[in-house]
């Protein structure tokens, strides 16, 4: 990343686009704390988090999804969700009582599954889910912790057009209070979710503005939209 400056307001929906290798996922990894920052500064909800480890950023209300589904493959869908729900509660340290008896945890996990359309797959093992269902669960895990800032890394990666449309509807139903930053190759999806677009190219921001302004930008048209 080189000299990238990005400010996202609370409640904003921002799309991050750019050709392969532009640094979109790298930027996510820096913001989420998965990669160390060598120069510069990251602020989250008004706090400097540049050196903060990822799990503490998550505790502040930041969650992310992964471009390649990053799930707990040999656990059930419900247990995947339970892990996401209990992540930010003290209950995760409980060693003496059975998980299965925690009704609140179960209810919240099931609520999350219903929100992403996986209610009837709760008992299935994740590795047996279809690719589309895994992408839905990917979003579910991110939503389960009730984030304030959600980083979506290509939620429609590998989905069929019909599945992509369903995903777009799912993303359209997100709580408007959640700030969303979305990386998306499919321009239709990106522009459906976000009104504001930032274009990255070789680690630099080359355009930033409303979708219409970005669409009209000559540099963007040249290197990205190819028109």
């Amino acid at each position, binding site marked *: 990343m080189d000299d990238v400056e990005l400010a996202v307001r609370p409640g904003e929906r921002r799309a991050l686009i750019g050709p392969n290798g532009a640094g979109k996922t790298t930027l996510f990894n820096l913001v*989420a704390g998965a990669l160390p920052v060598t120069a510069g500064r990251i602020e989250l909800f008004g706090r400097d988090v540049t050196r903060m480890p990822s*799990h503490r950023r*998550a505790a502040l209300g930041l969650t992310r999804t992964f471009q390649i589904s990053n799930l707990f*493959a040999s656990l059930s869908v419900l247990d995947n969700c339970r*892990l996401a729900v209990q992540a930010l509660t003290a209950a*995760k*340290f409980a060693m003496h009582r059975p998980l299965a008896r925690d009704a609140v945890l179960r209810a919240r996990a099931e609520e999350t599954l219903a929100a992403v359309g996986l209610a009837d797959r709760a008992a299935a093992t994740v590795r047996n889910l279809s690719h589309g269902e895994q992408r839905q669960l990917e979003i579910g895990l991110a939503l389960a*912790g009730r984030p304030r800032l959600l980083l979506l890394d290509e939620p429609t990666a590998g989905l069929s057009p019909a599945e992509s449309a369903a995903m777009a509807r799912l993303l359209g139903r997100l709580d408007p209070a959640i700030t969303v930053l979305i990386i998306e190759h499919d321009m239709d999806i990106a522009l459906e979710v976000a009104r504001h677009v930032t274009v990255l190219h070789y680690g630099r921001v080359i355009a930033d503005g409303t979708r219409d302004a970005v669409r009209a930008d000559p540099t963007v048209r040249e290197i990205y939209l190819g028109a």
Partner: protein
Amino acid sequence: MIGVGALVAAAAVAPTLPSYPLTLLTQVAIMAILAMSLDILLGYTGLPSLGHAAYFGTAAYAVGILATERQAGFLTCLVAGVLLATAAAALFGLVAIRATGTYFLMITLALGMVVWGLAFRWVSLTKGDNGIAGVPRPDLALPWSLAAPLPFFYFALVAAALAWAALGTLARSPFGLTLQGIRESETRMRALGYDVWLHKYLAFVISGGFAGFAGVLWAWYNGFVSPVDVQLVTSVETLLMVALGGPGTLAGPALGAAVIVFLKNFVSVYTKRWLLILGAVYIGVILFAPRGVLGALRAPRR
């Protein structure tokens, strides 16, 4: 259910057995605790420790030294053994948990060798290669003396049942699920807000504590503590018990402990090349039952 059945069956047949099979069953009960403790790391958290004998041996030495030189009783030996093993795990964990995969394996191996080296060389404390002989079994003020094989077998069996219940509770708790999540994907766990290091560390320390519990029982059972108890082969055998029985279950490692103990004792009657057989068994498991005997017996999940 199968586990409870095995416990009841073992308890029921024990009085009819001659003393040799009975001592083997006692060994199985103790080694089952050690294997289950390792499985918390290997099967649940996905951390392949190759130095588990260190915590087992630390506790065994603590009991050996306290019981022979200070005539320490049941509770002192038990508490000191488990605490020392836990402390050793807490110390080594600081070093080992930073590494993952093969590197974790190498570091735990190296730390295990450190303990072995201490047992071997710190002669004034450990009596070195001679070992500590004549470790007395504790007096529990029961009508039956633990010096006899049958009461001691029941004692070990109850201990194994307690350890199994405790580790089973842990495995089914929210914390147990957290460990499985770490096994499946550390990056996702971090993104969700888990301090992965902390949870691994806790698992490492708890696992070391239970290995120490097994070590305490072993010192009483054997009446003799020597560098053999902390050597690499003991760690390898433990790892094999877990891999053979089925990592990620608790009944699996217990089953693996039974297979290894019986195999070792029967095979060594015929050949000194026990390690060769052990290696062959290991290769067989990896090739034909990568999820262990219990994993292979259960209906395939795919």
